[in-house]
């Protein structure tokens, strides 16, 4: 009896020795399968997200509710006063609006005349909520609550009312992951928003590092150009140009806040503050139309 137990324990110990190498092998195998072979095992992720997404959404709405009530409770009185004042203002504005509508109709006719109706207000759009940011210091992702089940496809542009926010970079069944325009990998063909404005290439600058600029910690974009070649000044608005492959033309990217000469001054960098602050928004719009994409030989699409 005793001996039997001892034998069993010995067998168990023997097995336990193999546990760490086994775990290592499983990890390496998973890394190879998902990283190098490109098999993404999405069903596992989606199963987890089925549980986690509703919780995240719930947390978010609780947060918003608490925030709203905190704000609203103490300021009820002033809100009432403000309401009365705003009513008057609304009437005045309605009057103004009527006048502006007439103006707008005239502008529309002019627009048609110049065939300028390619702006983005005509694109089919769908709303989505940002339900998660990365939980770690080492990588950046935004997760939206819509996925391939809602017709979302990779490379669809993501905008807010302010302007361009980024594009969908990964799509799963119920959710999608967005790459922001400030991401260092992001490259957009832009144009200075003036009649006959120059074409520029807008790069994400988050985490960019150089001698002149130091370390860029904020969510910014930048344009590198040869000094004097491009007609650009502080305060210029940059919009997407019609040259790009994934973004429709006319979306606001941001405002030039600073122009810094680099090195000997032959080149300069324009710093751009994006029109959109993703950290402060929780609703975005996805343009559900993918422009004609140019695929390279690997089947990857270059924006």
């Amino acid at each position, binding site marked *: 009896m005793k001996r039997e137990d001892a034998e069993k324990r010995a067998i168990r110990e023997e097995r*336990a020795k193999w546990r760490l190498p086994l775990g290592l092998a499983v990890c390496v195998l*998973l890394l190879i399968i998902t990283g190098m072979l490109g098999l993404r095992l999405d069903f596992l992720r989606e199963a987890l997200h089925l549980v986690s997404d509703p919780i995240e959404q719930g947390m978010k709405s609780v947060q918003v509710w608490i925030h709203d009530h905190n704000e609203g409770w103490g300021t009820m009185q002033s809100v009432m006063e403000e309401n009365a004042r705003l009513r008057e203002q609304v009437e005045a504005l309605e009057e103004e609006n009527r006048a502006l509508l007439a103006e707008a109709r005239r502008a529309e006719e002019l627009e048609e005349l110049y065939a300028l109706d390619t702006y983005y207000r005509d694109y089919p759009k769908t709303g989505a909520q940002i339900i998660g940011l990365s939980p770690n210091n080492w990588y950046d992702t935004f*997760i939206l609550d819509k996925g391939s089940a809602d017709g979302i496809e990779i490379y669809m542009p993501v905008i807010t009312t302010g302007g361009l926010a980024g594009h969908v970079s990964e799509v799963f069944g119920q959710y999608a992951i967005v790459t922001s325009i400030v991401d260092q990998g992001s490259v957009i063909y832009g144009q200075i928003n003036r009649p006959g404005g120059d074409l520029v290439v807008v790069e994400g600058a988050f985490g960019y590092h150089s001698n002149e600029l130091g370390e860029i910690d904020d969510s910014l974009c930048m344009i590198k150009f040869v000094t004097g070649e491009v007609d650009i000044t502080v305060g210029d608005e940059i919009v997407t140009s019609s040259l790009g492959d994934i973004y429709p033309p006319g979306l606001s990217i941001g405002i030039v806040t600073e122009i810094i000469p680099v090195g000997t001054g032959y080149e300069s960098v324009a710093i751009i503050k994006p029109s959109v602050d993703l950290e402060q928004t929780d609703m975005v719009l996805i343009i559900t139309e993918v422009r004609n994409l140019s695929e390279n030989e690997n089947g990857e699409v270059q924006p």
Partner: protein
Amino acid sequence: MISLVLNALIGFIVLILQSSSLRGIAIGGILPDLLLLLTVSAAMVQGERRGSLIGFVLGLLEDLLFFRVLGFYALIYMLIGFSVGYLSRNLSRSLLLLPVSFTAASSFAAGLVQFIFLRFLKGDTRFAYYLFHLILPEVIYTLLLGVLLLPLLIKLNEFTDHVDEVNAQKRRMSRRIRS
């Protein structure tokens, strides 16, 4: 078993919270590594075998929920669980100093591994920058939180470990009676 399930559940909830509302606890954009605290406390109480298993499960959860390949964080946390469990075999946990220093060491090691694989191999060689802006702040923040949370987590793990042990003993007894 109960211990594993409970740790995984806490890890899952912590991850979800950290990606939404708990981001508010970030100081200067730095988040503490709460999964590491879970792994260290579990490994200290339950030894290297269960410790590495719990680390593996917690890391895999992070991979599944947020990371683009599977196995990266699973590997990191599994190795942390194993080494902390192995080193604390014959050590007392009654002093707080021990789990805290394990936390510091493993948080620093995890930071180094993440720097190497997520930055250095992509051609970003600014080690000093990441050391002072990301790795050390994360270690310090995790440490400070660890001083508060580790005693609690260790108590919790001791309790669930005890329950698991009692259950295992019962099973062994009934098997012996049957044979």
